[in-house]
């Protein structure tokens, strides 16, 4: 495939120049944050770091970390760096116990984010001659609007389908001859199966590429999707706190994602000590934004465990590559593309009057996550009627769906039957590991 870039000047910039650009932008961003975000200024003051101490990216390690807890504590406006009148957008991640993480964007922030997505689409072969079908969810979730904006920037004909209604997705895909598909990998696999069920062969559709992210997937799943849809499948990475999808994206080599280093600095740290680790070492991924206006974050800990490597890439891009995340340094699970913490399940149980005796079992069937929650019922919940127990299950399941945004399959079980190891209940059994999925 011909190597095409959306912003060649940056994407192929010599490494020394990237560093120079990062130096300049970092100094400015740190001063901007210090002057405008009291929450982070307090953290810097506490650590005894002044903006003047940051002269280049070599000084980055002096800055304090930001964690997800900081974002919750500062909710909603505590990390906002500009007047609300300068902001044009809010996006949000699913949160625990009612406290979500919200991120703000100025128009420049939205443009930067969409350009990052445009780079991903272009790297996957997208041009203004393509029809780009976006079936990530639209709304507070960044998947839909990110790729939608990126597709506009590329000039592709954008099909804003959002998620779900597979029959309609397939009808539009066939009738309007979509060439690029953007969704979660599990949904891509599902579309592939549905096409087959309807009697279509992989060569019957006009798709050539797919940009799939927001959940963990394996090389095996990539091959399945590529075969069933007759496309090349590319990975994309991002997080709402930093902007959204497009923080990093795959090129034609399909062996890791280039991080958009003109906008973000990536570090790998030891999750226990916070010490910066050398390139090529496995550790927790940390991002620093370089030119965000509304919601700049310095040294934000993603909790994703991965490896960074810089090497010559045949696509011509010089940006450092991150491997697929290999796990988490916290207890977050990604289920059907949605971030879920065990504490959210616990909050629902306590709220509904159950003791927090539960177990989450995750698996993958036909390339799609299954999500089962087992909850011990109280003595008083038991009656001789299955209908009563089933209605209690339904009630709890609905409450979890409201909290998480996805539906678990809920099972009430007898008291003291959930396996405990060393007296402590095992909260999560992730059978997806069998398939090499580690998140």
């Amino acid at each position, binding site marked *: 495939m011909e190597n095409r870039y959306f912003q060649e000047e940056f994407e192929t910039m010599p490494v020394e120049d990237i560093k120079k650009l990062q130096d300049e932008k970092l100094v400015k961003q740190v001063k901007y944050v210090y002057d405008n975000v009291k929450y982070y200024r307090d953290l810097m003051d506490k650590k005894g770091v002044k903006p003047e101490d940051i002269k280049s990216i070599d000084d980055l390690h002096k800055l304090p970390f930001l964690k997800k807890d900081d974002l919750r504590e500062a909710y909603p406006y505590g990390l906002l760096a500009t007047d609300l009148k300068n902001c044009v957008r809010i996006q949000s991640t699913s949160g625990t116990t009612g406290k979500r993480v919200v991120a703000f964007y100025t128009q420049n922030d939205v443009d930067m984010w969409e350009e990052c997505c445009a780079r991903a689409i272009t790297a996957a072969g997208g041009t203004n001659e393509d029809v780009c079908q976006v079936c990530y969810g639209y709304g507070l979730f960044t998947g839909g609007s990110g790729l939608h904006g990126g597709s506009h920037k590329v000039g592709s004909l954008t099909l804003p389908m959002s998620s779900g209604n597979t029959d309609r997705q397939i009808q539009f895909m066939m009738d309007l001859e979509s060439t690029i598909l953007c969704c979660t990998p599990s949904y891509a696999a599902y579309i592939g199966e549905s096409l087959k069920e309807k009697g279509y062969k992989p060569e019957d559709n006009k798709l050539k590429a797919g940009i799939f992210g927001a959940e963990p997937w394996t090389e095996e799943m990539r091959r399945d999707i590529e075969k069933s849809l007759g496309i090349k499948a590319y990975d994309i990475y991002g997080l709402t706190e930093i902007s959204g999808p497009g923080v990093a994206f795959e090129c034609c080599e399909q062996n890791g994602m280039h991080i958009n280093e003109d906008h973000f600095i990536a570090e790998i740290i030891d999750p226990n000590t916070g010490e910066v680790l050398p390139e090529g070492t496995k550790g927790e991924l940390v991002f620093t934004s370089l030119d965000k206006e509304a919601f700049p974050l310095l040294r934000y800990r993603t909790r994703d465990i991965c490896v960074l490597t810089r090497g010559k890439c045949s696509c011509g891009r010089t940006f450092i590559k991150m491997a697929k995340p290999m796990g988490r340094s916290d207890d977050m699970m990604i289920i059907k593309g949605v971030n879920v913490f065990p504490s959210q399940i616990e909050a629902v149980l306590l709220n509904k009057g159950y003791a927090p005796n539960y177990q989450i079992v995750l698996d993958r069937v036909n390339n799609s996550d299954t999500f089962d929650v087992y909850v011990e019922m109280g003595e008083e919940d038991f009656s*001789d*009627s299955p209908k009563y127990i089933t209605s209690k299950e339904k009630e709890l399941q609905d409450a979890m769906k409201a909290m998480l945004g996805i539906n678990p399959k809920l099972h009430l079980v007898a008291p*003291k039957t959930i396996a405990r190891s060393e007296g402590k209940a095992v909260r999560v059994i992730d059978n997806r590991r069998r398939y090499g999925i580690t998140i």
Partner: protein
Amino acid sequence: MAVKQLSIFVENKEGKLVTITDAIAKAGVDIRAMSVADTQDFGIFRLIVTEPEKAKQALESSGCFVSITKVVGVAIPDEPGALTKVVNVLARHNINIEYMYAFIAVAKKQAAVVLRVADNESAEKILKENGISLLDENEIINI
């Protein structure tokens, strides 16, 4: 008047039923009647036994989740039309049967019917008034 029934929660897993029957056997308790209500995930095993309290204790110490439910016991002759008479009386008085099961003593030409209704007392009263004989705990296990 009502009769004690054991209601036991059984997960749909291999060996779960063995735990229950074993515990009852070891306690030396005799099972008179049983019925099972099941869903995809679990079942509720309902038993009429000779010594419900003793069986409950034995079951609980084997880790079973069990409660005692009060049900209505009815004696009917083992002949055509006997059951419909009972059901008719309840229907006429708008009493909904949640579930029922029965067992027969062929030699005695008699059957016992176990009924689960929302309100035992009013159901028993109505049945009695309509000439249907009720069974107490002793009678049902000795039928």
